[in-house]
């Protein structure tokens, strides 16, 4: 079924068909939006794995992308509410500042890399290095995540309803990791931590924001930094 015949399209949305118009026209049209604009709903048709779809959005508009995207969809998003009705390639929501990105399918490597804020929801699985170097973003993955996720994660929250691969949270700083399933292994300086009432409350809020139902915060384990590598000590050299 061609993407253009989706019945769910809202009648007032501004429609951009990437079979007809260029990626550059799409991004420039989004960048021209001003705070008072009433073009608050956008729909992108035929993304067909294009890279850099809806990057650098700087206004609180909703963007429905009807299909799968390539690298860096929603990169540096600031305030946009982007929904990918398909899967996303590497670096979805990289360096997001604020707003939200929802991926209905799976996400490739580096989802939410270096994100400063906002909410990234992956309804399928995420690949390796999910949340790498995250700096304040909240990421909720309904499925599993791959190896080396949350590497050098500085701040923010990563919630995983499924399992995590090897070396979770290697060299982690102050980010919080919540995993419901099994963790293949923890990386250097990442440890399991006590789930205190404030963490249960925080996690419930994250699950609510991500639209997750039927899952209780008490089903998760919390992981974070042991903080033993924060100041260099020669006797810790074996940890690297």
């Amino acid at each position: 079924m061609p993407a253009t015949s989706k019945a769910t399209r809202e009648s007032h949305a501004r429609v951009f068909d990437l079979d007809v118009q260029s990626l550059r026209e799409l991004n420039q049209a989004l960048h021209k939006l001003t705070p008072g604009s009433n073009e608050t709903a956008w729909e992108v048709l035929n993304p067909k794995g294009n890279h850099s779809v809806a990057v650098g959005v700087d206004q609180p508009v909703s963007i429905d992308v009807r299909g799968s995207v390539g690298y860096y969809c929603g990169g540096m998003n600031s305030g946009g509410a982007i929904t990918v009705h398909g899967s996303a390639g590497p670096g979805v929501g990289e360096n997001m500042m604020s707003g939200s990105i929802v991926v209905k399918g799976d996400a490739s490597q580096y989802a939410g890399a270096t994100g400063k804020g906002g909410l990234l929801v992956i309804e399928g699985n995420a690949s390796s290095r999910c949340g790498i170097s995250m700096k304040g973003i909240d990421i909720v993955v309904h499925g599993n995540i791959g190896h080396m996720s949350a590497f050098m994660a500085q701040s923010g929250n990563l919630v995983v309803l499924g399992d995590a691969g090897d070396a979770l949270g290697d060299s982690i700083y102050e980010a919080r990791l919540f995993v419901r399933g099994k963790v293949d292994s923890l990386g250097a300086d990442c440890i399991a931590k006590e789930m205190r009432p404030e963490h249960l409350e925080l996690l419930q809020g994250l699950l609510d924001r991500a639209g997750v139902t039927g899952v209780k915060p008490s089903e998760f384990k919390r992981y974070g930094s042991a903080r033993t590598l924060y100041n260099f000590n020669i006797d810790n050299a074996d940890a690297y």
Partner: protein
Amino acid sequence: MTYRNPPTTPRKSATFDDYTLSEIRRAAATGIYDIRGAGAKRKLPHFDDLLFLGASISRYPLEGYRERCDTSVVLGSRHAKKPIELKIPITVAGMSFGSLSGPAKEALGRGATLSGTSTTTGDGGMTEEERGHSKQLVYQYLPSRYGMNLRDLRRADAIEVVVGQGAKPGGGGMLLGQKISDRVAEMRTLPKGIDQRSASRHPDWTGPDDLEIKILELREITDWEKPIYVKVGGARPYYDTALAVKAGADVVVVDGMQGGTAATQEVFIENVGQPTLACIRPAVQALQDLGMHRKVQLIISGGIRNGADVAKALALGVDAVSIGTAALVALGDNDPRWEAEYNELGTTAGAYDDWHEGRDPAGITTQDPELMKRVDPIAAGRRLANYLKVMTLEAQTIARACGKNSLHNLEPEDLVALTIEAAAMAGVPLAGTNWIPGKNGF
């Protein structure tokens, strides 16, 4: 009276010299490698090993002070809608806020702006001081992405994707806890006082094909307006330059091993990477082989000190040079006026390189509020502008003597080398011969 055989003079080993012995003792006492700032300190083949021929009967010179010698350069005309237009081919290299104090960053911006050139952010994000005082500011896109944000990306005049730097090709940044003040910590989203080691690889791309997609993203975010530089350490300049061009760079920056760093291991600085002089011809050759010489601009950095260095680099085919260490010296780094305080730190003016410790008597590589007051950004910016002016006049003097009405008309044929090494690296004849080592089969 008994006869004594004449003694031999005590002889120290060239292999185990005083510095080496002191380093063995230091390592044995502390159990940790030596960390310092600046670039390679060992003697290397450099621009000093090249000479200009000047004019004679076969070439005639331009009149100094009367005939124009153009110094301007445009960077980023390949893809960017708004290329960088510089009055002089000398730019100020990336140095981080965090490593440098706020007043020092402001002084760099002021000096560069007075001189009609650009300055560059660093591994700590963009500060208001440098944005406000830099007419043309290059925003570095680093593996750490500290402080990286959409607003600053859009208010930059160019973007420099940093893959590596000459002091430590393959290494990431380092900022020890004593320099992580509240302001630095906030910009980097890190707890105050921890040792911060930046990643050495970008978190969301690997290899030249990914880099091409990353550059596309940065262009899309900034509406194809801004030049995009790719900076590499002097590792494999031919292939790194070719791959940067293939990935879509407007400008390639190659930083040789004399290029400074805020802090890394001494063993890394002195033993990894190639001298600046050895990086230039391979990088130029890569551009020529691709038909992109002068279409993609080449910036060289690492040990540029005076107008002769600038002229020699340009003669070898680069479009502009970049200075870091020399700019800091112009601001007041390692000034003998602070000798007593350098002595207290166990060093001497001219040798001080513990920039990571944050106790810089000159107030430049510090976050100490009292020490940084020693940098008057207006006066220090003026000194940098003076120094840039002198370098430019020096380069023009040489270019006119070679009969060139633009610095960019200098060419390898204007040069000879004093040593076989420099002749081989620069691809110019050994002085007094027509021998270019490695050319024509011998």
